C-alpha cells in the first residue's frame, strides 16, 4: 500500500506522517509537492498538519487553491482514500470535500496536549480496526479547531454517521472540559458521505510510538491497511 503525503508551502507535520508510515508501519510513502497534478499510483493520500500559507486569512483557505488540490478532489470523487489531519482537515473543509468549517478555538488560545476521542463509527476504512466506542488517546495542537456546521447539515451528519470521533474524557464521557476547542457537539472528526474522506483535528501520527506517550493513533492507520488488504489492493483510481 502506498501513501502520498501532500506538502503545501507551510506544511510542517509532513515529516511526521512520513516517518510514521515509513519507519513505524514500514509501508511505502512519498511526498507530493503542491504543484503536482498526477496522483496515479497512490492508494491513500494524507494531507498533513501545519500552517499552509501561514494559515493567513483562514486556516486552509489558500492551500485549497493549489494545483494538487484539483487532483485530490478528483482522487476523492473516484473513491480514493483521503485523510486530512489538523491543517489537512481545514484544507478539506475549505475545498468542500468535507462539510462544516473550523474556526478559532472558543478560548481563543492555541492548544497543544493530549486528548481522548471516542470512535463513533467503526465501520469506515479509517476506523475498521477500532472497537465500537473505543477511546483513543491522541494529542491535538491547533488554534482553529472549533468545528461548526449549520443545524441542517448537522442532522444529516448524524443520520449518515459522518461524525467519526468525538472529544471525551479518559472514561469516554463527553464534557466541556474534555473538549479542547469548543467544537460543536464535541466533534473531532468527520467524513464525507461516502466515507472515503476523513478529516480529524487530533494528530494520529503523533501517537504512534510508546516512547512518545501513546500508540492509539495507529488504530487509524492500521484500519487503512486492513481495509486495503481486505479489498485486495486496488488503488483509488
Amino acid at each position, binding site marked *: 500500500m502506498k501513501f502520498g503525503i501532500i506538502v503545501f508551502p*507551510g506544511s510542517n507535520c509532513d515529516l511526521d506522517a512520513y*516517518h510514521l508510515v515509513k519507519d513505524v508501519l514500514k509501508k511505502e510513502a512519498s511526498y507530493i509537492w503542491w504543484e503536482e497534478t498526477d496522483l496515479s499510483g497512490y492508494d491513500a493520500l494524507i494531507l498533513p498538519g501545519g*500552517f499552509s500559507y501561514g494559515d493567513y486569512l483562514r486556516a486552509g483557505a489558500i492551500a485549497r487553491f493549489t494545483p494538487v488540490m484539483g487532483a485530490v478532489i478528483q482522487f476523492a470523487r473516484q473513491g480514493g482514500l483521503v485523510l486530512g489531519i489538523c491543517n489537512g482537515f481545514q484544507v478539506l473543509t475549505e475545498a468542500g470535500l468535507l462539510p462544516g468549517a473550523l474556526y478559532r478555538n472558543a478560548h481563543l488560545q492555541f492548544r*497543544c496536549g493530549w486528548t481522548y476521542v471516542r470512535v463513533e463509527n467503526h465501520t469506515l476504512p479509517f476506523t475498521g480496526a477500532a472497537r465500537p466506542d473505543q477511546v483513543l488517546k491522541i494529542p491535538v495542537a491547533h488554534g482553529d479547531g472549533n468545528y461548526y456546521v449549520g443545524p441542517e447539515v448537522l442532522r444529516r451528519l448524524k443520520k449518515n454517521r459522518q461524525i467519526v470521533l468525538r472529544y471525551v474524557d479518559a472514561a469516554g464521557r463527553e464534557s466541556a472540559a474534555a473538549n479542547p476547542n469548543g467544537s460543536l457537539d464535541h466533534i473531532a472528526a468527520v467524513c464525507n458521505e461516502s466515507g472515503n474522506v476523513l478529516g480529524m483535528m487530533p494528530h494520529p501520527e503523533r501517537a504512534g510510538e510508546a516512547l512518545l506517550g501513546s500508540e492509539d493513533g495507529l488504530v487509524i492507520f492500521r484500519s487503512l491497511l486492513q481495509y486495503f488488504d481486505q479489498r485486495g489492493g486496488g488503488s483509488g483510481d
Partner: protein
Amino acid sequence: MTETGRHLWRRLGLNDGEYERICADLGREPNRVELNMYSVMWSEHCSYKHSKSTLRLFPTSGPRVLLGPGENAGVVDIGGGWAVAFKIESHNHPSAIEPYQGAATGVGGIIRDIFTLGARPVALLNSLRFGSLEDARVRYLFDNVVAGIGGYGNCIGIPTVAGEIAFEPCYQDNPLVNAMCVGLLPVEKLVLGQAPGAGNLVVLVGARTGRDGIHGVTFASEELSEASAERRPAVQVGDPFLEKLLLEASLEVIAGGLAVGVQDLGGAGLTCAVTETAARSGSGMELELDKVPLREAGMSPLEIMVSESQERMLFIIEPGRFNDAAKVFRRWGLSFAVIGRVTADGWITVKHGGRTVARVPAASVAGGAPLYEPDSREPEYYRERQSVDPLDYPAVEDCTEALLEVLGSPDVASKQWVWRRYDYMVRTCTVQGPGGDAAVIRLRETGQALALAVDGNGRHTYLDPYRGGMMAVAEATRNLACTGAEPIGITDCLNFGNPEKPEIFWQFRRAVEGMSEACRVLEVPVVGGNVSFYNEVEGEAIYPTPVVGAVGLLENPDQQCDIAFKKAGDLLYLAGSSTVSLGGSQFIKVIHQAVAGSLPPVDLALEKRLQKLLVQAVRAGLLSSAHDLSDGGLAVALAESCIAGGLGAQVTLPGHPRPELPLFGEGPSRAIVSVKAAAREKLLALAAKLEVPLLFLGEVGGDKLSISVTHVPVVDVTIFELKKIYEESIPCIMEQ
C-alpha cells in the same frame, strides 16, 4: 568636528573618542551613511564593547566543540558525523514595546541563527521574566509574549519544549524575553558566516526590505524611558510562513553545497551581514543597493543599509552555482536578488543610483569598536542584604499552609497555562515535553537523544552574583543529569542593567566569574551566547539575570528518567548536599515578602559527583524518578513529583528547631530520587563509590504527601489539593 556633527554622532550613540577612531580608520570624516553603519555596528548590541573582555573568562573549548563563540551559534559534536548547534538570544526591548511581535521576532531571529549554519532546528526554549502579575499591564505583556512565542514557533513547526518563567517587580516595565534554538546538522555540511573568494555573488534572499526596525540595535543599547519611546523604530512584524520557506530553501542550498558562506540578517540588518561576513574572510564587497528588493518606494541608501526587516538571509555563492541555487529559491517561492560581489580589497563599497554612497573597511566596522573595561564597584545593598538572617523572621505556624502558598506562587506554580499554547510535540521527537526538569528529544538521525534546559535566578544573582552565576550553571546542567543526560555544552544570555554604572558592571563581572568557575569544574564549555545590557527603566535596573541554556546527550533514549513518582513502595532518597539556606529563597519571598539573606556555599566538586551519580544511575536503570531541588526546596520538589506521578509519599526528615529550613531551604547540588527496593543496594554502592551522600527520606505511596521532622508531622496534604493549587494558580490569575 563641527558642533552639528557632534550632535549627529552623539545622537547615534557614539562618543567623541569613537568618532575620532572612525575618522582614523577611514582616513577622513564619514558621510551620513557611513556614520550610521558605524553607529549600528559599534552599538553595544553588536560590538560587545563593554562585555567582550569579561566574556573571555568563559572556558569555550573542549573535545566536542566544533565552533565556539564568535559565529552565529555554537556547534558541538555528538559523534557519528552529527553535531548540535544552539544559541540563546534576548529580545527584551522589542518585547517591552510590542510583546507579541517582539517575542515572535525574537524566536524568528534565533531560528535563523541556527539554520544559517546548515543545521535543521529541532527545538525551541525560552526564558521569561515579568513584573508582578497583580499588574494589568504585566498580565498583558505576559499573555502576549507567550502568544507571540507560540505564534511563531507553532507556525514554523519547531517544537517549543522547555522554558522557565519568573515574576519579580524589577521586571515590571522591562520584561526579559530570551529565546533559544537547537539544531542538528551533519558535521560536513557546516557552513560559516563568511564571504570568501573575490568575484563570488552576494545574494539577498527572503523578505523585501522595508523601513522597519531602523536603528533597532541602537535602541536596544540604551535605557528605556519616555524619550526612547518617541525614538523607537517602526515595530517589526514577524512572518513565520516566510521563514519556514526560507528555512527549507536555505537548508536545501546548503545541503547541495551551493553556498560558500551564509549569514542571517538580524540586528543592524544588511550592514551587519555584509561587514561581518567580509571581515571574517578578510575580503570586501561591492554592493548595488538598487538591486535590493524593497517593500516601500523611495527608501534611501541609509535606510536600506540599517533596516532590520525580518526573514532575510545573505548567501555568498560562486557564479557557477548561482543557477542551481536560484532554482531552489524559486521552487520555494522566495524572492532573491544578486546585490553585489565579493572583492579582495577589504572594503565595503556601497553604490546607489550610480554613485558611491559609502566606502568603509569591513574589519573596522565589524570589529574595530573600542573595547572598554568599565569601572567596577560593589553596590551598597550587597553587604546589607547578605547580613540578614532569614531565621530572624517569625516562625510559620502551619507548614502545610506555607507549602500550599509557595506551591501556588506564580514562580513555582505549574506553567501549563503557558506551554499548552506551544506546540511541543511537532516533529514527533518529544520524549519529555515541558513540565519536568529538562526536555528530552530523540534524534531520529542518530538514535540518540538530547536533554535541554534553561535556567537562571535573578534574585540569587542579585544577592550574590558570584554564587548566583555558579548556581545558574549548576542548576541547568543538573537538570540535564536528572534525565540521565551528560551535559555537552551551554549557551548563555546575560541580562543586566547599564554597564557604564560601576555597580552594574560589578554584578556582571562577578556573575561571569562565577559561571566560568562552574563551567571549568563541571567541564562544560560555553559555546555561544548573548549579552543584553541597559535593561533599566528610568534608572532602575533589573536584577542581574544570567540565563543558562544547557544541552545534554543521552546515548539511548530508552534510558532516561523523569520527575514523576512511579510506584508505591519505591524508596526515596535525597542525593547530594545537605547544606541549605533560606537566603534569597522562594519561601522568604512568598511568606515574608523579602529578598534577603546569604546564599548557601556552592561545592562544585560535589555538584560534579552528584551529576555523575545521576547519569550513571539512570543509565544503569536504577532510578524510578529523579528531580532536581530548586525553587521552594525539598517540600516543593516532593510535591511536584507527587503531582506528576499522581502518587503520594511519606517522608521523615532529621530534626531541626525550625522546620522551614529543611522543608523550604534552597541550595545547589541536591536531587530527590526514588528507587525500587530491589535497586537500593546498587544505588547505595554507586553513591558510595562516587562519594555522594544519600539521605533516606521515606517511601512513595498513598494519596497524600506527609512530612515529619523528627517524627513531628509538619506537612500533611492530599495530592488532589496540591495539584489543584499548583495547576490552577496561573490560569486563575490570568483569566480573572
